[in-house]
């Protein structure tokens, strides 16, 4: 069985977001790049499934759409333990484009399970995984918090409002995963970093695709007014303000 994990390259979550060129472009000067946190958890879970001798997972690879500057992120994925990395050489314009590129690769190189993080922490589209499923005509399960293999079936838990559902799905499958899928992301060890240098990072030419959306401009949120302080000895004043001033009680 082969598992493919989709990787997005995003600014570190502590980044202070800035824009340039009249607020039409993200200003990436001084930005540290990381593997999108959910994708990192997905990769960790995929590796755990491979290491469990009861499963027959023989390959965990990662795929990414981006330029050469994102190779460091893919090397990190290899250092964490992925067997191979594939980079589709194109600018990740929007979710439709990214999903279309990954699907084009998958059609030629099938995998049994595709993992995708629930969203990327930059453009928050939450759609690449489900779009890949549709391009491929695969089943898909979203909001996944747990994945286990049972022979050729996959047993997943899906979060629903106020609870969860246990689901049995057939292969091939796209699982869109969120927090809970793995306890915490794996940190690359020195040995992993050394080995990653020798692992294959294959660069693939992009497929021609029509663009359906474009980014017009960005805005930063307006600064918030001052915080009104209430004395800890008079909390009833807070309740009063929430009722009559903020009108939220």
């Amino acid at each position, binding site marked *: 069985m082969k598992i493919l994990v989709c990787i997005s390259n995003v600014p570190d*979550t502590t980044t202070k977001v800035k824009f340039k060129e009249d607020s039409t472009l993200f200003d990436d000067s001084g930005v540290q790049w990381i593997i999108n946190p959910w994708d990192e958890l997905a990769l960790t879970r995929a590796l755990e499934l491979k290491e469990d001798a009861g499963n027959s997972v023989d390959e965990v690879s990662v795929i990414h759409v981006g330029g050469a500057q994102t190779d460091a992120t893919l090397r990190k994925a290899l250092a964490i333990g992925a067997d191979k990395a594939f980079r589709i050489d194109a600018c990740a314009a929007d979710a439709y484009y990214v999903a279309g590129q990954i699907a084009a690769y998958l059609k030629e190189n099938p995998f049994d399970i595709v993992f995708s993080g629930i969203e990327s922490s930059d453009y928050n589209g939450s759609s690449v995984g489900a779009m890949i499923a549709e391009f491929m005509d695969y089943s898909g399960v979203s909001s996944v918090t747990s994945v286990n293999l049972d022979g050729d079936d996959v047993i997943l838990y899906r979060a629903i409002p106020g609870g969860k559902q246990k689901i049995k799905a057939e292969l091939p499958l796209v699982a869109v995963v969120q927090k809970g899928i793995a306890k915490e992301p794996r940190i690359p060890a020195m040995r992993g970093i050394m080995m990653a240098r020798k692992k294959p990072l294959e660069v693939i030419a992009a497929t021609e695709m029509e663009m359906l959306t474009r980014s017009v401009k960005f805005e930063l949120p307006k600064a918030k007014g001052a915080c009104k302080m209430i004395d800890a000895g008079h909390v009833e004043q807070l309740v009063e303000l929430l009722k009559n001033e903020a009108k939220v009680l």
Partner: protein
Amino acid sequence: MSVIAFAKNWNGKFKNSTFELVSYTRNLASQLNTQLIVVSIGEVKEEELKSLGKYGAERIISVNDPQMNTLTSRVYAQVISKLAEIEGADTIVMSDNESGKAIAPRISVKMKAGMASAVLELPVSMNPFVVKKGVFSGKAFEHVQIDSPVKVITIAKNCFGFIENQVDVSIEEFSPNLDAALFKIQVLEEEKQTNKVNLADADIVVSAGRGMRSPDNWGVVEELADALGAATACSRPVSDEGWRGHEEHVGQTGKVIAPNLYFAAGISGAIQHVAGISRSKCIVAINTDPEAPIFGVADYGIVGDVMEVLPKLTEAVRNSK
């Protein structure tokens, strides 16, 4: 041309987010000078469907099929796309929740329709079609232009509110002929906590962080939540330590929420936490450290120990009722 709104039900019932969706799309259809069609999938009683008339749903198409009571994104996407083709709909809208996130991207691919998710208000412009959405987990906004003839958007919670606009409702039944092979996923069990307020839907959220010092101290958080009819939540370190379940983690990598009122108790206010709560209408911070960054984003603040302040607050809330 018409607008399709997909009204998701939960065990045959609609929620506030459905009423907000109908209000939003009613307004959008009027601005586009076109018809609104509300689509419901799975078993929903006529009376419940008619409740959408209060928000302007004149025409409802109901796929009243028990086979479709559980979300199978592939099937739902097929049904909605089919209806969109029959009706010549060019704008498809749904709520940005677990079902919208699963279905909308599939419709986008099926119909070659550009998509924007978690849209925050009515379109900034209709022609070209430009919408505003949150990016960088609430740290910024982006204006996205959709150039394709068919457009798919999901709308963020509390982006529009609900507006009453009572109309007479016509209900049509629709039976799509679906291939049984599409139903490849099977729900084996379902677990639900019925006694708790669901975090994603909650109007009020009481959230606590490491300032609580120990998981054994959560009683005061739960009591305040109980007095307010609120959901409980927590910061990332708390869920990472296993003090609370990860389903309670609010922040950039956990849940992003937009309640009317958010209490941050013993939470310092790291940038990743703020990203998950910045769309809350009103934020109250309680922290021993007057320099804590959370006060920079809060509307109201109390400097004090959460273990003393929270019980007093619970009492004040109970007394005010």
